[in-house]
Every structure is written in structure tokens, then in C-alpha cells.
């Protein structure tokens, strides 16, 4: 609890602040949007937090989102694949990407930053290649499939929980159990803290690191799928641009240290929510110009990280 108390307080305060300054903040429509966007980015953030816990980084998330987001409609509409097959193929490719990253990092001993930076360039490049740079989408077809992202679990007449948010809760629960209750979760924390000591304790560190990249890419694929099902239009040249940075920012806000070894799923999800509430605030507050969005988000992130560091330093003393 204490690990994410800070960010939880931040979220609650931001939430209250925004509901005061933004007229329509509490409208059902806006709350649904907020939950849906938190869910989409939250899934990516949970994925990257696995990698960050091992002390690694994955910069290719946005490009995997692009690959899946453009690839799935491309397979379905241009090549008439059954949707189920296309989705399975997307996840298989994402897992292969994770395995490939893991192989390069653990066996060839390349740095995660470099490996995934190349991935960032390659997967987007490949997507632009096979789609011939054309915008992908489902048009007005496949609305049943799109329910996965656009559907709602109606709670009241006006308000419903978006399906992606339910998916986030499920994925979050699995991630939480994995990290806190299983042997593998313990191994991830151990090796993120001290890979050499973990290896000396008989842990298959290489396999565990690879697993974290597979999880990260798979969740990026799930995110990419939901993004395209929701948005229905993906330009290969910029679909998912910078999403890895949003995911990393949410993970860091949620208490993951880029040095590895720490992080909580709940904190990361709250971190993703904070980013979305912030953006929402910028949108709703008329005196905040929307092109200042990056400035505000970056500034708040920096303040949060500084505060976190100061608190930790005090605890250490």
C-alpha cells in the first residue's frame, strides 16, 4: 500500500481538482472516455513494467502497437483472414518479437535500449512496407469484433464500464498474481535488483528476462488491437508513435525504478490513470492551452519523480 500511496493521493487530488475546474468532467461520457483511455495505456504500462522490473527497457512498444494495429485490419480486410486467425497471428508475432528481444539481450548481450530502439524503427518500417503506407481500418464492417473496444457494460442508463477497462482489470489481476504470488514474479524482482546474485542463486535469469519481454510485447499487442478496434483508423507512419514513452512514464509514476527491482501493478495502473486525468484536465480547463499538453504532462511527471526520490532518500536516512 505504502508503495503506491503517493501516486494514489496524487490521482485523487487531481481528480477532485479537475472535477472543480472542468464543467463536464463528471459527465458520463467523459468518465467513460477516461476509463477507456486509462485502460488502453494502462495495458501497455503493465507490460513495460515487467521489463522495467528486470532493469530493462522496451522502446518498441509503440511500433508493436502500430504493427498489430495496422496488421490486423490489413489481414482481415485486404486478405480476407477470419478475424480470430488474424488476432492469433498478431499475438504470435508479438511473442516472437519478445523472444527475439530476449535472445539478443541475454545471449548476444546487447543492451535493451539498443535492441528495442532498433525494434522501434524496424517494426514500424515493416508495417509501412506491407501496408504500402496506406491507412488501415475496418470501415463499417466487423462491428462485433470492435465491441471488444467500443462495447460497454451498462451500469446506469447513462454510464457503462467500457470493455477495455474490464480487460485492464483482468490483465491487472493476472499481472498482480504473477508478480506477487508466483516464484517467477519473485525471480523477476530478484534479478532486477541484482542479476548476478540471482544467477548465483540458481535462477534461470536469461529465461526470466526473456519472459518479461514476451509479456511486454504481448500486452503491447493487446493494446494495439484495442487501439485499432476503438479508433478504427491507423496510419502506419504514426499509429502508436511515442506510446512507449507514455507507458514508461506511467510505470515510473506508478513506482517502477528504471534501475530495476521495484514496481507494483496497482501503482502502474494508477500512474496511467494520472496521465489521463491530467490530459483531461488540460482539455477541459479553457485557460490551459491544449498545445501545452506535453509541457504540463512532462512537468507533473518530473515533479512526481523528484518528490518520490526525496521521500525515498528520507526513508533511507
Amino acid at each position: 500500500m505504502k508503495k503506491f500511496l503517493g501516486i494514489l493521493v496524487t490521482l485523487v487530488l487531481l481528480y477532485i481538482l479537475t472535477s472543480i475546474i472542468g464543467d463536464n468532467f463528471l459527465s458520463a461520457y467523459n468518465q467513460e472516455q477516461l476509463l477507456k483511455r486509462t485502460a488502453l495505456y494502462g495495458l501497455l504500462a503493465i507490460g513495460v513494467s515487467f521489463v522495467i522490473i528486470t532493469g530493462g527497457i522496451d522502446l518498441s512498444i509503440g511500433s508493436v502497437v502500430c504493427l498489430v494495429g495496422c496488421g490486423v485490419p490489413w489481414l482481415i480486410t485486404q486478405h480476407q483472414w477470419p478475424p480470430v486467425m488474424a488476432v492469433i497471428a498478431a499475438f504470435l508475432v508479438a511473442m516472437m518479437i519478445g523472444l527475439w528481444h530476449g535472445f539478443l539481450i541475454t545471449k548476444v548481450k546487447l543492451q535493451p535500449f539498443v535492441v528495442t530502439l532498433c525494434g522501434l524503427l524496424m517494426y514500424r518500417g515493416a508495417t509501412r512496407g506491407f501496408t504500402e503506407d496506406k491507412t488501415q481500418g475496418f470501415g463499417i464492417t466487423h462491428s462485433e469484433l470492435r465491441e471488444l473496444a467500443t462495447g460497454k457494460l451498462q451500469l446506469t442508463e447513462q454510464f457503462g464500464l467500457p470493455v477495455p477497462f474490464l480487460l485492464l482489470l483482468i490483465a491487472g489481476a493476472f499481472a498482480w498474481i504473477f508478480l506477487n504470488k508466483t516464484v517467477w514474479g519473485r525471480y523477476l524482482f530478484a534479478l532486477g535488483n541484482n542479476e548476478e546474485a540471482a544467477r548465483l542463486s540458481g535462477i534461470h535469469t536469461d529465461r526470466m528476462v526473456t519472459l518479461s519481454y514476451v509479456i511486454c510485447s504481448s500486452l503491447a499487442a493487446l493494446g494495439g488491437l484495442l487501439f485499432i478496434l476503438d479508433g478504427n483508423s491507423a496510419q502506419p507512419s504514426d499509429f502508436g508513435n511515442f506510446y512507449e514513452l507514455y507507458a514508461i512514464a506511467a510505470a515510473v509514476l506508478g513506482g517502477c525504478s528504471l534501475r530495476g527491482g521495484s514496481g507494483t501493478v496497482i501503482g502502474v495502473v494508477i500512474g496511467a490513470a494520472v496521465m489521463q486525468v491530467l490530459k483531461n484536465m488540460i482539455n477541459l480547463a479553457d485557460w490551459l492551452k491544449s498545445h501545452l499538453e506535453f509541457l504540463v504532462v512532462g512537468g507533473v511527471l518530473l515533479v512526481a519523480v523528484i518528490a518520490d526520490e526525496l521521500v525515498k532518500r528520507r526513508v533511507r536516512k
Partner: protein
Amino acid sequence: MKIVIITAVFLGTFLFTGCGEKKDQPETYALVPPSVSNFWEICRKGGADAAVELGVEFEFVTPESITDQKVKVEDLLSKGVQGIAIAPGDPANQTGLINDVASRVPLVTVDTDAPESQRKVFIGIDNYEAGWLAGDLVREAAPEGGEVVIFIGNISQLNSRQRRQGLIDNLVGREKDSSRYDVPGEVVKGDRYSILDTLLDGVDAPKAKANAADALTKHQNLSVMVGLFDYNAGQILEELKQANKVGEIQIVSFDEHANTLAGIKEGSIYGTVVQNPYQYGYQAVKMLHRLSEGDHSAIPENGVIEIPARIIKKDHVEEFQRDLETKLAN
């Protein structure tokens, strides 16, 4: 335990959901273009002028990409605007989004249409026809024929793809068919003109300039370079000046970028096809206001308000520019 608390916090807030009621203030109408450029600046001016005339608020929101366009539109709905004009970047796939918006507030499309959707009105030109017009300019500029290279921001947007296709189809003398598509990079040959390549820059001006340079290096016998996004011709001209090839190779432009107009004035750009973005913005806000007041009489039968494209060449460029400046000044 922790999860229970979090869930409680989240769900607790929903109890207040729907409490925020809109306060009394003038109606707000918004216009969402697909990208940022001079062209849309002029359009914004038109919208703003209309809003002043009507005594309403006008908001102009620029997204970073087509994907972001959806986010921006949703943001506007969150804020509670009374009408939205959108220039859809990907109309085929944005039909759902447009319908969703149209079910909540009055909506018109500008510049690019989404004919399948439930939009009330489309205000703009036919991009295929406009591209065809640019083809006419090329024919005038290089009546002997020759090699042509096309420069464009992207062709993932339907309007830019059609614009390019209209140009190509005109030059190689095909029947008009706006659903045709030639893959960039493949040479399209007609009797007199052959289109060697289409270079994309992702709406990135420095990249556009580099593309022009690449084309000059690769193709030694170019007759005409056509820039189909507003900044393209200016970038091509810069490169031609540096390569000392002004006059040797003709430039045909699209839209009324300041550099384009300056180029036409000094004679280094042959001509440009202009739309009337000012009118797009102006008419869109006027239309949205009437719709929001419940006045549906202004909707034309076919749902299209066409604002025709024009050709601007050296002879009347100054007059055109003066007109533009007066519009932008106040």
C-alpha cells in the same frame, strides 16, 4: 484489500457522474482539421470571422495524427461543444466516429467528405477534380510533355490520394475514375508524360526539401515537379534555386502557401490550384449554427456545398494575394 479500496475510490466517483450541468454561455462550435498547415490557418480565420458575425465561440483544434483526431473530437464532446466541423483524415474508417458525433451534436465535414456517414453537410471541393485541374496546369507548363515527379505529404488520406490520382489520370489521358490507385514508385507512362515517382514526406518540410534534392539527383531530365501539399512547391523551389535549375524545370503547386505565391510572382513557379479554405471555415460555422438552432432548410439536396477550386497564375496572383491578406488581417 488494496484492490477493494481502489475499486471503491473509482466507483465512488461515479456516484457523482452526471452531476456537472452545462452553465449558461454562448454556443461553441469547433473545427478539427487532420493536420497543421497554412491552409488550415486560413480556414481557421474563416471560421473565426463567422463566429464573430454570429456572436458565438469558435474553437480550432489541431491533432497530431489521424488517430489523434479521434481523441481530439472525443475531447470536444467531453467539453460539450454544440457543433463540430471535421476534415476527416481517413473518412472510410472514421464513419463510425462521425456517426457517433453526429448522433450527439450537429456535424459537417469540410475539405474531405465521408459520404457513407450521417454527416449533415459536406463543404469542399472534389479532390479528384482539383488534381485533374493541376494536370491541366502541367499540360500548360510543359506542352511538349516530359518526365514528372510528384511530391506529397502522404497518400494515406483519401483526399490526397484522389488529388494525386486526378493529376496522374489527366496526364496519361485516362478516363475519369476516382477509385483508381497507382502504387507510388511505379512509373506511369502516357503518350507525352511519364510520372516517374511519387515522393512522400510525412508532412515534414525538411524531408520534402530532401525529397526534391533526391529527385534532382536521380532523374536528370525532369520537366515538371508537382507539389501537392501546400508547402511542397516552396521546398521544391528552394532546392531548384540551390541547384541553379529554376526555369529549366517547371513547378506546379497546390494551395496558397506564401512561398508559392512569391514564387508565382517572380515567375519561378508556373501556377497553383487553390481551394478556398477561408470559405470552408466560414461556411462550416454558419451551417453549424443554423443546424444547432434547428434550421435544416439550408441543407442542399445532395448534402454538398461545393466551393470550386481555381487556378492562380502570374497574371492575377497579386490580386489574389491582396484579397487573402485583407481576410487574414482583421
